[in-house]
């Protein structure tokens, strides 16, 4: 169940090249990290499959965000290494990493009055320098990113005047403008309406499957992870408890182990994806509601 082999992504569905051996550009080797004196990650070994959506799930405080930050070079590991193309991420140049790996953290700050186009243009930062100023390539990347994220219509409006979902699309477009093959997102769908969450996940799926980008997404919503992940990683107490294709590991047992959640897992006929339905504890009979 807990084999560290992305080759086993034998899921059904539309993910391209699944089941075939895939390469991996991003890996964690006995990675340990934490904040001050509180260790969070406890010797994580993980190989992120290329061109897929990898979802990290787990209860609050399990270390999924910490893992993402350590992989993205935001947090210094206290032990082990995060490898990008075989090179230690933390001893690499920040800018070099940023040219290969994009990150959308939780709770980015929208500067007051910044327009959508200006925000997305910030994604070009790692490609620019004092000498190399704004070029046609930058302009094109920004336009493409805005098109992909479907925000071209309000390109000149201030980001802080948009809805939560539109705003999140702008941030994703900013990361897209960075033009990296690897994109790490920390809970991109939290606080959004279900329909908006689904739209965003469809956009991200398209990035992985049509553009062959590698996405690692921390997700809070279990059913969203089950519906969209190509490779699912379940964490608890700083360790990976279970990993693999959704169909293989998303079941009542693992949900009980990882989340201490009593739930039934059923498979949706339309998508072929598993869905978890929590079992309510019934100590007493529910109140009888009389309608009419």
């Amino acid at each position: 169940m807990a084999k560290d082999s992305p080759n086993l992504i034998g899921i059904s569905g539309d993910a391209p090249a699944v089941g075939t051996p895939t390469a991996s550009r991003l890996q964690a080797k006995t990675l340990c990290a934490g904040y001050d004196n509180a260790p969070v990650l406890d010797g994580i070994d993980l190989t992120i499959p290329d061109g897929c959506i990898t979802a990290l799930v787990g209860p609050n405080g399990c270390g999924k965000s910490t893992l993402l930050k350590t992989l993205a070079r935001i947090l210094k590991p206290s032990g082990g290494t995060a490898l990008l193309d075989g090179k230690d991420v933390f001893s690499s140049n920040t800018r070099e990493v940023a040219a290969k790996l994009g990150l959308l953290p939780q709770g980015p700050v929208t500067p007051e009055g910044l327009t959508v186009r200006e925000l997305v243009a910030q994604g070009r930062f790692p490609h620019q320098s004092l000498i190399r100023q704004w070029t046609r390539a930058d302009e094109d990347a920004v336009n493409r990113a805005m098109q992909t994220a479907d925000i071209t219509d309000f390109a000149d409006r201030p980001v802080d005047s948009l809805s939560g979902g539109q705003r999140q699309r702008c941030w994703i477009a900013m990361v897209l403008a960075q033009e990296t093959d690897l994109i790490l997102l920390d809970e991109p769908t939290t606080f959004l309406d279900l329909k908006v969450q689904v739209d965003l996940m469809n956009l991200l799926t398209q990035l992985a499957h049509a553009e062959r980008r590698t996405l690692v997404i921390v997700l809070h919503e279990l059913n969203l992870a089950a519906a969209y992940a190509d490779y699912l990683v379940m964490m608890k107490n700083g360790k990976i408890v279970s990993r693999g294709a959704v169909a293989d590991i998303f079941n009542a047992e693992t949900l009980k182990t990882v989340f201490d959640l009593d739930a039934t897992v059923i498979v949706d006929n339309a998508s072929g994806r598993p869905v978890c339905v929590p079992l309510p504890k019934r100590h007493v009979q529910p109140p009888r509601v009389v309608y009419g």
Partner: protein
Amino acid sequence: MADVEEVARPTNLRRIAPAGAALIMCVVIVLTMAVHIAVGAKQLPLSTVFEALLHKNDKVFDHIIIWDLRLPRAILAVVVGAAISVAGALMQGVTRNPLADPGILGLMAGASFAVVTALNLFGISSPVWLPVIAAAGALVAAVVVYGIAVWAPGGATPATLTLSGAAVTAFLGAFISLMHIMNEDGFDQLRVWLTGSLAGRDLGLLIYAGPPLFVALIAGLLLGRQVTVLSMGDEVAAGLGVKTGHLKLMLLAVVVVLTASAVTLAGPLGFIGLVIPHAVRLFAGSDYRLIVPFSALAGAAYLTAVDTVARMALQPQEISTGLVTAMIGAPLFVFLVWKKTR
């Protein structure tokens, strides 16, 4: 460079508009300076001012007034106004705190206190050392204000930072007053170090405070791009390849040098660093690549205009420049707080 020429039209337009605006503001600065020079105990026509500046004639008394007395003060206003405004803009960007300003966060009081202590207690009046002493004072004050805010319940929020800055400013202000009373110094000196003034300042200081100020100003302009990225959050910035810790230290150094040089030259002129960047944002947007240079230009014009008012309003008396900046700045500050917390 070939790829730069191919840039699409909209980008060209976006580049030309700021350049035009900058040009207009430079003209405004020159005109404000001309008016600043023209008014005073002896009113001079603008034509004389420009004539003196373009063709100096040592035999004409008005030309000597202009070159020896009035032009230096106008230059001081331009330099100090630019420095304080850029310091404020950078502080607002890096702290993501709309109320950040070297005066409000106590840096100016720290610099002022250090200079007054050096002058009165240690008898150091060497123009070489005063900017350095001011910088040390500004740095210590910044660290203390930040420390108090972090230690307060809720951590370093705009509110706790503003409060701790106010407390530190009031505390140091008391000592500045005390030292002047004990030394029976002139009221003129006291008002310079409590509220800031451009009157009768020693221009010799500009030789020593000017170069670091200029270097810090250039550094601030060059860091604008990174400040924009930093204003979107530390993690976003790090994800885009900014060395955030490194950048913050550099910005702290730039802000401390700008504040210290400005205070050495003119004392703690309040509210300019707060108000100017906000005014600039109204037309320049939220990108610090534009906010920083336009803050420099607008700050220069603003302080020159304010100083003109200070010299004119109660003729033949002169109001301290710092009083006028506070009279105009404080209501604007209240307005900003009201607007941000609404």
